[in-house]
């Protein structure tokens, strides 16, 4: 009898405790952080949006695909990595491929991607860096490796009728080093590179 009433008391305490904590941790806390974010870091809190001529064209943190309506790579833009988010770079469905290292579908996909890049960019398969033929964890990777960016210079320059040396120096100016010199890997932000590219004459 005392155990049953004891358990009832525990439960009644638990209900009240959770109700109060939900208000504090579930409502006040996120709203307070939202207020801090909107006042102190509005650019970051709203998604690091990138504007061209006053119009939002994307986020510097969310990768995009550079393909035509049929999904074919547009040669005049630097290409992002392969993506497993939706049909590719779907910001509403972040995802990796989750293919294991021996999965025959992944092995075939890597071969196909290597063949496609080899054909479009006129390079040998051995020159193609790993990130160019593998999908990222999020499917929204905004970056490519400097090696993959430099590999695409000749193709992009030719498609746009630009001097390859100018495009190459543009890419080199967009290479971001490791944070503090030792965290992460050097990268090139594809959206920022392509925006700069579109103003190159």
């Amino acid at each position, binding site marked *: 009898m005392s155990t049953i009433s004891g358990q009832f008391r525990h439960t009644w305490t638990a209900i009240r405790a959770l109700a109060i904590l939900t208000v504090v941790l579930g409502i006040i806390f996120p709203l307070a952080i939202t207020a801090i974010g909107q006042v102190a870091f509005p650019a970051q809190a*709203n998604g690091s949006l990138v504007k061209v001529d006053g119009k939002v064209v994307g986020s510097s943190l*969310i990768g995009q695909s550079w393909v035509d309506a049929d999904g074919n790579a547009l040669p005049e833009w630097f290409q992002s990595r392969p993506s497993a988010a939706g049909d590719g770079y779907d910001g509403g*469905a972040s995802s*990796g491929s989750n293919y294991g290292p*021996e*999965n025959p579908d992944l092995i075939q996909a890597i071969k196909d991607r290597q063949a496609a890049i080899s054909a479009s960019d006129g390079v040998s398969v051995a020159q193609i860096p790993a990130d160019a033929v593998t999908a990222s*964890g999020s499917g929204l*990777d905004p970056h490519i490796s400097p090696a993959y960016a430099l590999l695409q210079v000749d193709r992009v320059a030719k498609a746009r009728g630009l001097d390859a040396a100018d495009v190459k120096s543009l890419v080199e100016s967009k290479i971001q080093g490791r944070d503090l010199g030792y*965290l992460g*890997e050097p990268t090139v932000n594809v959206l920022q590179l392509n925006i700069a590219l579109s103003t190159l004459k």
Partner: protein
Amino acid sequence: MTANVWLFIAQLATIAVILVLVYRPLGDYMAMVFTSPKNLRVERGFYRLIGVNAASEQSWPAYLRSILAFSAVGILVVYAMQRVQEILPYSLGLPATSEHLSFNTAISFVTNTNWQSYSPDVTLGYTVQFAGLAVQNFVSAAVGIAVAVALVRGFAYKRSGTIGNFWVDMTRSTLRILLPFSVLAAIILLAGGVIQNFSGFQDVSTIAGGSATIPGGPVASQEAIKLLGTNGGGFFNANSAHPFENPTPWTNMVQILLMLVIPFALPRTFGRMVGDNRQGLAIAGTMATLFAVSVSLMTWAELHGAGTAPQLAGAAMEGKEDRFGIIGSTIFGTTSTITSTGAVNSMHDSFTSLGGGMAMLNIMLGELAPGGVGSGLYGILMIAIIAVFVAGLMVGRTPEYLGKKIGAREMKLASLYILATPTLVLAGTALSFAIPAVRSDVTSTSIWNPGLHGFTEVLYAFTSAANNNGSAFAGLTANTPWFNTALGVAMLLGRFLPIVFVLALAGSLAKQDRVPVTNGTLPTHRPQFVVLLLGVIVIVTALTYFPVLALGPLAEGLL
């Protein structure tokens, strides 16, 4: 390769230096939090509202009943919120989730697991995430810390019938530790680019003439406690691989440190509360050694990049983000699995066989190097009891730990503790293939990768669930009635059975007097004890899991 070795060492050294600097002040602060007789004014008001006398301590059964009542209410609330999602504000037009998914997710967040059978981007609105799930991120972590503190009191108290007051421990963990540090962490993450808004999905036209979707959400507030409370449930499907959750290499380092800081400082709290800081140092040293070995092995495996696909591509970059690279991915992956976090910044399903195997092995070790908040400390103390017993058998000494005799009752409870989760892991995996109807569903619907790797997906799921980790070989489609139910049960029992044994042990230790230290006492603060403890951890895990590991990652990696 040499450059990679130096980059790895530099990052590991950064982690080590920061943890060493924080060890003492944070550990001492937490000891003060749990021993201070004073209540803050806001806490006094809270105790009055919930009808708790903060000055009265509880016996272990009462302490346990409070935890179970609090967790049961939590499960019901999170379940109900998902079932009525469409009428809640900021539902993003998403419908209620199914019964079995709501069951699984409710248990998952209340047990500090954060297993996600669903893809949050397309399943959950904002209200369920911040008012349901994130609240449990705080309080489930607080429950873990409370249980650890109760066990430490078992060692510290003499001839006592009580082990503390759950409501006080939970409240202080939340208000004095988790909440203030989460505010700080959220602000740092905001500065690094993590989003915090209520904008929903935003469609924009790209400069190439296409369109792109930019997601929104109150992410930074959830991200902070996701890591600090070793919860791990992502706001987005891609978790910490998503650039809005983890935008840069330095936020990646911050996230790694957030997962490690409380579990690595709790041994200091333990040493402080039992009145011998060297005891805490021995535990922290054991954790650090195991962590260093484990992270080195996973990093080696991924940099080495064995396997057909990584060799063909030139590196194991499938499922990894360019900004983190391989080293930033393996340090995060090890941290997340060797604590009980289960967050991922790269897809473990796509790791090399041995690298992915290391992630699973970290969980199988019992997540105690340093483990989850609280659960890591009580986990390693249970193994320490077994180590003392083993040493006692070898030299013929009466086993005792910190002046408490390890008798038949204590050994039974410690043995039950180490048997509980492996039983759930192995039984769950076996049943998935043994029940004919389930087997055909598992192999045709759930498993994503063919062959041995597919078996590993199922083994990883039960390992992760029963140990309350929450990471996955995410190719597995777990949103099925079988997996939602079986993994839900595994999470529930994997969380609360060990807690029952820990609290029962705390009760029986607290009752004892302290026996004085003699020549015959095994010193438990010396390096020899660290080696013994490491040996026991490895042997217990190896004996339990070697056969099943041989069927999955070892076979795939070595054949």
